[in-house]
């Protein structure tokens, strides 16, 4: 806490102007002292002795003359063991603990410790007195759920240090002094298991940033096969409301093949977070066999919570993601929705009376979005291990129109684009990722040429479908009609996936490959049908068999029986296989 104090001279929504008597720094945390409540605020503009702050709470009741205090610190989060399984608001307030204190409602001015101070952790030291260490080097470890949590030299110690003393193995809490480090000038620094890091600064304690190449499996067919995401990559899911952005995010948060998932519910419905909150503790993580909640952190600043904290919430989330990456873990950050975050910036920009850019978004919108997504990445640590932060953000474009500024700024910086379409969701084709508009620059679980080959049927099938609308079915050749049916077939049995079916909701890469092979065999086959009606009803039957099979457990007897039926049914009508399909099948089977 610095000695700078001030008093309020103006209030406009959540922007409060304060006249100060000393030095202040940009983005410093201030408190407006309202009776016995201290409302947290952030300095966002300094003009002479007038400082404008955005207050993270409802500002009702503030008067001209209300005192303010300045902390001298930037907005920061606590990092240390105990983050996993927690539910925080945008400022890292633990919401369950807040609920115990204030009941049903979120009362302003209540700030609690992010990390529980009384939990004891089983410490095993990794260094001994005399060792040389630098920032982010491991001092010791504690078990946290299924992970070995590394207690590191705080990232804000920039010198190199000699370990003077270190606590022996035993049980300690986060605030206990675990080691004393001496810097090059001979000054001692006491270090505990936790430290703070400012949220708006990227953690940069790695050796090198690498190119994302390894696929991050989501167990979602259309993503893994057609529009894959790589570990350390970025992707965005824009879509109009009701197209299934949030369901897609929820399914991904359950099934993604990563160590840790951080969910940033940013300015969205509280109800959606509740589903995650209540269901995750019951679900098991197939990787560790423990509760899914133990690998999850939820940062939740829903739409009716104060808007300034919404702006902070995505940074809070990404900072925690970067922290776990330093332990050599793969972290997935799901931000829903980045548009709400952008809108929070717009609200503040309006109050600051900045000159507006497109749709009144601030001119710095693009650079802010870019620098947020750039905090993703796969890195090699000094120890040689790899860790990654993958960021997936939903975008809620106004009117479902992808031409708007937030979508456009996001598309410039992400590596994969999963565009959801109203047309597909209206037709109940879920996930409503549009197969012709979406793209990915990453390598997935299948070879690119196979995917491109299959994708051709979607493109051509859709063209024929469009054409049929003009010339009618009678004006379409049987060959074209077959391509259309094949495209529809691929769409129905492979691209669409029922996330409410316990089996179909998550499909392993192994099963995806096997099912993809079955689809390829049909796509690449020539058939002999006497007319379009015969072709359509045969494909209807085939589709039905495939869909029934999609909800059967992989490898079960029922599955094998259904598989046998499907294979013989398909073989009956087939009169040949094209050479490309044959080659794909050779490598797949």
């Amino acid at each position, binding site marked *: 806490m610095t000695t700078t104090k001030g008093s309020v*001279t*103006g*209030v406009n*929504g959540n922007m409060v*102007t304060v006249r100060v008597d000393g030095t202040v720094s940009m983005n410093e945390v201030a408190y407006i002292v309202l009776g016995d409540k201290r409302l947290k605020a952030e300095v966002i503009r300094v003009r002479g002795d007038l400082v404008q702050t955005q207050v993270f709470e409802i500002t*009702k*009741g*503030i*008067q*001209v*003359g209300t005192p303010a205090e300045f902390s001298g610190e930037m907005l920061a989060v606590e990092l240390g063991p105990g983050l996993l399984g927690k*539910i925080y608001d945008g400022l890292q307030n633990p*919401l369950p603990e807040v*609920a115990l204190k*204030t*009941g*049903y409602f*979120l009362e*302003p001015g209540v700030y609690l410790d992010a990390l529980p101070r009384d939990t004891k952790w089983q410490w095993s030291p990794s260094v001994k007195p005399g060792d040389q260490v630098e920032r982010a080097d491991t001092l010791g470890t504690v078990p946290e759920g299924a992970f070995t949590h590394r207690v590191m030299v705080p990232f804000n110690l920039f010198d190199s240090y000699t370990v003077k003393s270190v606590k022996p193995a035993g049980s300690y809490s986060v605030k206990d002094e675990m080691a004393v480090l001496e810097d090059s000038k001979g000054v001692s620094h006491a270090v505990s298991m936790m430290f703070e890091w400012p949220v708006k600064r990227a953690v940069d304690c790695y050796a090198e940033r690498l190119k994302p190449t390894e696929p991050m499996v989501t167990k979602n067919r259309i993503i893994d096969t057609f529009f894959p995401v790589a570990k350390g990559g970025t992707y965005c899911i824009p879509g109009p*409301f*009701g197209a299934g952005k949030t369901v897609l995010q929820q399914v991904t948060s359950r099934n993604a093949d990563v160590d840790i998932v951080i969910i940033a519910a940013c300015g969205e*419905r*509280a*109800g959606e*977070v*509740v589903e995650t909150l209540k269901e995750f503790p019951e679900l098991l993580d197939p990787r560790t066999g423990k509760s899914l909640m133990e690998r999850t952190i939820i940062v*939740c600043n*829903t*739409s*009716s*919570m104060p*808007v300034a904290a919404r702006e902070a919430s995505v940074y809070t989330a990404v900072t925690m993601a970067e922290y776990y990456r330093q332990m050599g873990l793969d972290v997935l950050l799901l931000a829903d*929705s980045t548009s709400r975050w952008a*809108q929070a910036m*717009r*609200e503040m*920009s*309006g109050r600051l*009376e900045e000159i507006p850019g497109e*749709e*009144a*978004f601030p001119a710095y919108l693009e650079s802010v979005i870019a620098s947020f997504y750039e905090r993703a990445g796969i890195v090699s640590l000094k120890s040689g291990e790899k860790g990654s932060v993958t960021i997936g953000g939903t975008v809620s474009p*106004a*009117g479902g129109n992808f031409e708007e500024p937030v979508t456009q700024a996001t598309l410039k910086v992400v590596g994969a684009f999963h565009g959801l379409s109203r047309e597909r969701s*209206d*037709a*109940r084709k879920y996930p409503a990722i549009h197969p012709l508009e979406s793209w990915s620059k990453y390598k997935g679980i299948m070879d690119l040429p196979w995917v491109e080959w299959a994708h051709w049927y979607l493109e051509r099938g859709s063209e024929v479908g469009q054409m*049929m*609308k*003009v010339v*009618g*079915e*009678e004006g379409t050749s049987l060959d074209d009609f077959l391509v259309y049916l094949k495209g529809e077939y691929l769409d129905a049995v492979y691209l669409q996936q029922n996330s*409410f079916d316990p089996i179909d909701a998550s499909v392993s890469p192994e099963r995806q490959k096997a099912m993809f092979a079955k689809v390829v065999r049909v796509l690449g086959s020539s058939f002999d049908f006497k007319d*379009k*009606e015969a072709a*359509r009803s045969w494909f*209807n039957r085939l*589709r*039905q068999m495939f869909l029934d099979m999609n909800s059967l457990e992989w490898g079960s007897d029922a599955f094998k029986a259904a598989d046998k039926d499907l294979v013989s049914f398909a073989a009956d009508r087939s009169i040949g296989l094209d050479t490309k399909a044959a080659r794909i099948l050779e490598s797949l089977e």
Partner: protein
Amino acid sequence: MKKVYSRIESITGNVIAVKALDVAYGELAEVQTRFGMSLAEVIRLDEGLVSLQVFAGGRGISTGDEVRFLGNPMRVSFSDALKGRIFTGAGEPRDKGPALSENLIPIGGPSVNPVNRIIPREMIRTGIPMIDLFNTLVKSQKLPIFSVSGEPYNQLLARIAMQAEVDLIVLGGMGLKYDDYLFFKDTLEEGGALQNTVMFVHTAADPVVECLMVPDISLAVAERFALKGLNVLVLLTDMTNFADSLKEISITQEQVPSNRGYPGDLYSQLASRYEKAVDFADSGSITVLAVTTMPGDDVTHPVPDNTGYITEGQFYLKGGRIEPFGSLSRLKQQVNGKTRADHRAIMDGMIKLFAAYRDTLEKKSMGFQMSAWDQKLLKYGELFEKEMMDLSVNIPLEKALDKGWEILASCFEPQETGLQSKLTEQFWPKG
């Protein structure tokens, strides 16, 4: 006693400014004008200058009028005496009953802590197949009715109000035509529901600032009743008028508009109201149904667009019917797995076929030859529109499901429906 200020520095639209000290943001004041007393709310503090939004509007205010600060934010009286009463947006009686002043509660209170929420678990039956079967309404849901002027949205709202099983109805009217206000009053009275209704009505003739108060005041009252264990249904009509009032005020305040003149915080403003919908674990609940009229039937207009991102789905009322496309209840999955084994399959299957019917209809209108499959779809679509979509159909969910199978069986073979074989074996009508 607070000081009285008798010098108004500026008057812009409905906003006046006075030089005053010791005034809190959000505080109320009384403005004494030649037409009587009006409430006003502090919306901005800048050094010594206090800007106030006058509920009765700025018209006729003189720079010499008196402003007296009350030392408290906007409040409303809360007690069982509210039941059966009708008030204005400022909380004054609109019926002939007495003004209420005991047990004042603040409005626009803080948000519910997300961890205290529970997963919605109970459906609200309405007897309308397009809702019960295809887009089930769930307790604690917030759902708008998207519509255009001229559609019977208030009739639909009133019918849901009468048929839905809830303990209390809070009706918030914004910019209501006087006729519509009387329609609600009469319908609820005739149905015997007025005793379990509280109405806060702002009519089109009332000052615009009062319109802004209606959702907050309605929801504050609903919240208190819910905390006392009641299941409350809040009906808000029409939220587009609310948004337009926001627009009017913010433009007068010289705020930078974001989209078609609406303020940049439109989303947050709407969300903080809709998010009041809640199911308190060991107490009552609030369900919100709100009408949003779409200017020009344009769903991408900022008001329906922002609303759609906030609410848990929407009913799309068009041509006097709830459209299956564009309508969505996001919470239906929470409850429709527990009703009947065929509920979800019928819901998805019938809509997929109906989508195919619409495609066929398009082809037909362009004069193409109809295949045998097209003929089947045409028959199906007509039956669906008549037996399911028509708003006069009033049957419980189970009957609606049976009817669904009947319609399918009269048009298709089981394997043509895309429904799982084990379901068609069980439910396909025999004979």
